[in-house]
């Protein structure tokens, strides 16, 4: 019943528009715009909720109560925060590079939105099923570094610049294990299309066939999206807030929201590549596929938050050593083993 909720809605709208003799192109554009608005709404609401959830989770880990005064159980806390930042002064220091400085907060939010283009939310719910979905994901996530670099460089502040440099170093070193872990999944699925990868996990999820790949990916994605054991980019005790130091008001709010949206994207990628995407486990299809997707996403998010509130921040040299001397060799070995395993499997079968 709920399974075809969104697909059915789109179909119904399309037939209704066509029966009213709209031009086909108008229908297409309208439906595409509707999809974009839907994705944006999903993104914003989730980011708002995630901030609240993170604070609550952190409070729970530290035996505190967490926000509980604004709205029932403090659920409107982030709404109040966003409204406040909305009405706060946007401060532009004198010696900043005006264009990149003002452009960076706008661009930072476009990247997660672009990533949502290829993600299969449910059965038949892919905004655009790209052939090279995995490659697209990798390519677009790394663009974020350029935006952070823009912010850091143009702020004309030593802390911002240091943070931006760290973000570049981090992205360069952790992109490798991410790509290699993805490659092992692509080898198993035999396709770079995300919907194919999800379809290949119908029987067995890749987390069981690729446990090492999963671990590498889990850690490296955490680093790529700068979550706490690896949040050197805004290491508060050393470099104030990294590239965000000079931003105030809504500009800062955009960075803040983008951070949580990226975090959500990381969880979504783990879900899609390793946890079977929208596939229902044990054949429990009475829960619609998109709901399964959201449940799994929140499970992964909770795991990441657990990591975040448990571990300390590590030093930059430890972080780079870990990437180059440990994660990269292990992921290479993992690929080799996967290749040999696939070859043997084929030999046995035929």
């Amino acid at each position, binding site marked *: 019943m709920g399974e075809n909720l969104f697909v059915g809605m789109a179909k119904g709208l399309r037939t209704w528009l066509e029966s009213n003799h709209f031009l086909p192109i108008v229908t297409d554009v309208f439906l595409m715009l509707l999809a974009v608005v839907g994705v944006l709404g999903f993104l914003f609401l989730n980011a708002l909720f995630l901030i609240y959830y993170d*604070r609550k989770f952190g*409070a729970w880990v*530290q*035996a*505190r*109560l*967490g*926000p*509980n*005064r*604004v709205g029932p159980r*403090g659920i409107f*806390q982030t*709404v*109040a*925060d*966003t*409204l*406040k930042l*909305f*009405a*706060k*002064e*946007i*401060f532009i220091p004198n010696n900043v590079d005006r264009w990149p400085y003002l452009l960076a907060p706008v661009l930072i939010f476009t990247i997660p939105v672009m990533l949502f283009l290829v993600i299969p939310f449910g059965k038949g719910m892919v905004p655009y099923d790209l052939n090279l979905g995995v490659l697209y994901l990798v390519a677009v996530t790394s663009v974020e570094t350029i935006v952070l670099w823009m912010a850091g460089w143009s702020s004309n502040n030593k802390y911002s610049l240091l943070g931006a440099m760290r973000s570049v170093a981090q992205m360069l070193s952790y992109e490798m294990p991410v790509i290699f872990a993805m490659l092992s999944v692509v080898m198993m699925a035999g396709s770079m299309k995300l919907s194919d990868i999800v379809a290949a996990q119908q029987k067995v999820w890749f987390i069981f066939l690729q446990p090492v790949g999963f671990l590498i990916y889990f850690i490296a994605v955490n680093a790529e999206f700068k979550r706490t054991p690896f949040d050197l980019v805004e290491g*508060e*005790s050393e470099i*104030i*807030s990294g590239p*965000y*130091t*000079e*931003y*105030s*008001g809504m500009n*800062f709010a955009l960075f803040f929201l983008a951070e949580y949206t990226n975090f959500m994207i990381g969880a979504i990628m783990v879900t899609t590549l390793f946890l079977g995407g929208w596939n229902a486990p044990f054949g429990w299809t009475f829960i619609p596929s998109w709901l399964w997707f959201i449940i799994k996403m929140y499970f992964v998010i909770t795991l990441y938050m657990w990591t975040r509130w448990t571990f300390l921040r590590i030093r930059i040299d430890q972080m780079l050593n870990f990437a180059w001397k440990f994660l990269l060799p292990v992921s290479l070995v993992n690929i080799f083993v996967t290749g040999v395993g696939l070859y043997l499997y084929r030999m046995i079968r035929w």
Partner: protein
Amino acid sequence: MEIKTIQSEEEKLIGKNVFLTTLDAVFNWARGNSLWPLTFGLACCAIEVMAAGGPKYDFSRFGYEVWRPSPRHADLMIVAGTITKKMQPLVLRLYEQMAEPKYVIAMGSCAISGGPFVDSYHVVPGANTFLPVDVYIPGCPPRPEALLYGWLELKRKIQNPRVVKK
């Protein structure tokens, strides 16, 4: 006398403008509920601020636990401790770096008047000599409950600007 009447007429006009006042009320509600403090402390009172953030007193209940290291993101400066003459310009600079609207809480007798060191040659006698202080919290040091009470009084002040005007 005359100035007073003019002001009240202006206020009446503003009061008629329903849209403006409701939007103000919404923003004041939001401001009062998300006072992000600037991470800094000057002396022993700062320890008490940390205690207020811990599990026992926990000001995150009110949504105030988002410590901001950068003054550009912060709304509230808690002057918690002794302000020495050497530190005073830096405190002032931090205040000036914060983006409007910004609020100041003077915590402890040092920040109110110089406290035990009031007649010292190197202590500034009170934060109000160079900062617009919104709420004073007496004590040496004030207990975490007192800090929370002061914080909530500031919230009341922000959310009911009329109370403060009178």
